[in-house]
């Protein structure tokens, strides 16, 4: 048969030579290979002490961002909930009262904002849908494992960015992904 490429290798069932049948030369060769590995650099990352650096575009645990003055960005428009293919997000909107301007950036805010982490597939569509740059999937924080069903639903108490990180963070978007930075730049320049 005509060979299509010359890469195929013909199988031969030739008799083994005496050296091959003795098996000992092959054993010595094998010992050489294992000895080489014995002195090789080890690939183990010793987890609690060492951690594998995470990718910049990793989609981890969600965060509801605050702005520079510590006000919540979310305006409870519901676009994230609509975008969510797993229907993990639910929220209840409320109107900002006079005197709450230091708490909420917009006139409407999310009184309840919940993400069901059992449903969430960490696709990141919510962060793409958000017009206010309020929700992000952090690239440096993983969603933890759960021990009870009550733990699974993350409310605002666990989602909203803490005030300390606003002060310590180098920039508003520190720890966010490359695409987020791009979106943020566009948003700041006011060119939608």
């Amino acid at each position: 048969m005509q060979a299509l490429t010359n890469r195929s290798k013909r199988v031969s069932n030739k008799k083994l030579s005496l050296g091959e049948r003795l098996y000992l030369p092959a054993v010595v060769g094998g010992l050489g290979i294992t000895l080489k590995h014995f002195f090789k650099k080890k690939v183990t990352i010793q987890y609690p002490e060492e951690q594998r650096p995470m990718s910049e575009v990793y989609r981890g645990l969600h965060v509801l961002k605050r702005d520079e003055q510590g006000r919540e960005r979310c305006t409870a428009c519901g676009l994230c909930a609509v975008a969510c293919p797993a229907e993990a997000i639910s929220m209840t909107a409320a109107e900002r009262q006079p005197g709450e301007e230091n708490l909420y950036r917009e006139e409407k805010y999310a009184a309840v904002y919940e993400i069901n982490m059992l449903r969430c597939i960490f696709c990141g569509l919510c962060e793409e849908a958000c017009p206010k740059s309020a929700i992000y999937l952090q690239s440096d924080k993983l969603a933890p494992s759960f021990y009870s069903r009550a733990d699974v639903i993350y409310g605002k108490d666990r989602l909203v960015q803490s005030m300390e990180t606003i002060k310590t963070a180098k920039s508003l978007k520190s720890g966010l992904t490359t695409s987020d930075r791009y979106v943020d730049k566009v948003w700041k320049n006011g060119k939608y």
Partner: protein
Amino acid sequence: MELYLFLAKGTIILLIFGITLLIATYSTYAERKVAGFIQDRLGPNRAGPWGIWQPLADAGKMFFKQDFIPARASKWLFIAGPSLAMLTACLTSCVIPFGDTLDLSFLGIEKPVAIQGIDVNIGILYVFGLVSLGVYGVMIGGWASNNKFSLLGAIRAASQNISYELAMSLSIIAIIMITGSLSVSEIIKDQDTFFKWNIFRQPVGFIIFIICAFAECNRTPFDLPECETELIGGYHTEYSSMKLGFYLFAEYINMFVSSAVISALYFGGYHFPGESIVAGLLPEGALGHNLMTLIGVGAFFGKILFFIFFFMWVRWTIARFRYDQLMNLGWKSLIPLAIANILVTGAVLLALPEIKGYISSL
């Protein structure tokens, strides 16, 4: 000064026993470390610095596990199995001379004291006797478990050990013919210079012996008595807690003893190259002699540790044989080869004086 002699000998025996157990304990740790390193991992490193307390943690775990005896098992034999395995493993090291003699004349002991449990003139025979007795530990354990898989494992172990004992003993006969003695210390004394080491005089015998040693210790590539896929566990399927621990530990003691026997029979025991130069540097008299003996002990333990490492190195390199391949290798290759080795050795031994006479007559 009988008392001093008794005390000195007792100390040496206790030391040998203690070191045997210590090395066997740390072999379990070394095994896992070597396995890790060969597979580009780190091995156990959590218990203490570099994980050196790992054997203690393992022993603690073994002791606190439930000690289970199956309802239909033969209770006495079930207990006797691991005990016998451990007993025979521990007894073997007493005829191995770990060093030359110590001159203890300052204690009033006239005769030099050998660093050896007992110097019997049938040392090798004693070792092989105990090794073949060791099979009973496995056999009894597998039989007493009243479990098909244990029994199959035990049968495998027994037939494997008996088959390879033959080739092993035959390969030794050539050495006994050269030395003219069954005593291990005589065999070591006969290899006093580097090129008189039996590895150079009996290379074929050495290869047969080391292959058989792997089979006798149930080590890879001959670890067929233990097998998860076919036998669930092997002869120790029903064992738990320290009884299982004894079986596993006996394997490591056997490995230590085999390494010691290999070093003694083929690698000159406590002799090392450049011995006469070192002896010239040391002071005269009892002190120099004792120092020389201690250096020799160090050399012997170096060889033993290398062979223990070699056992592990091979284990993590080669895949196991199939059972029929194992039997073919033992009966159809190694035994005929060993017999041929004896014949050739005998012929050379007979011809050597003739050749020497012929050369000197020229």
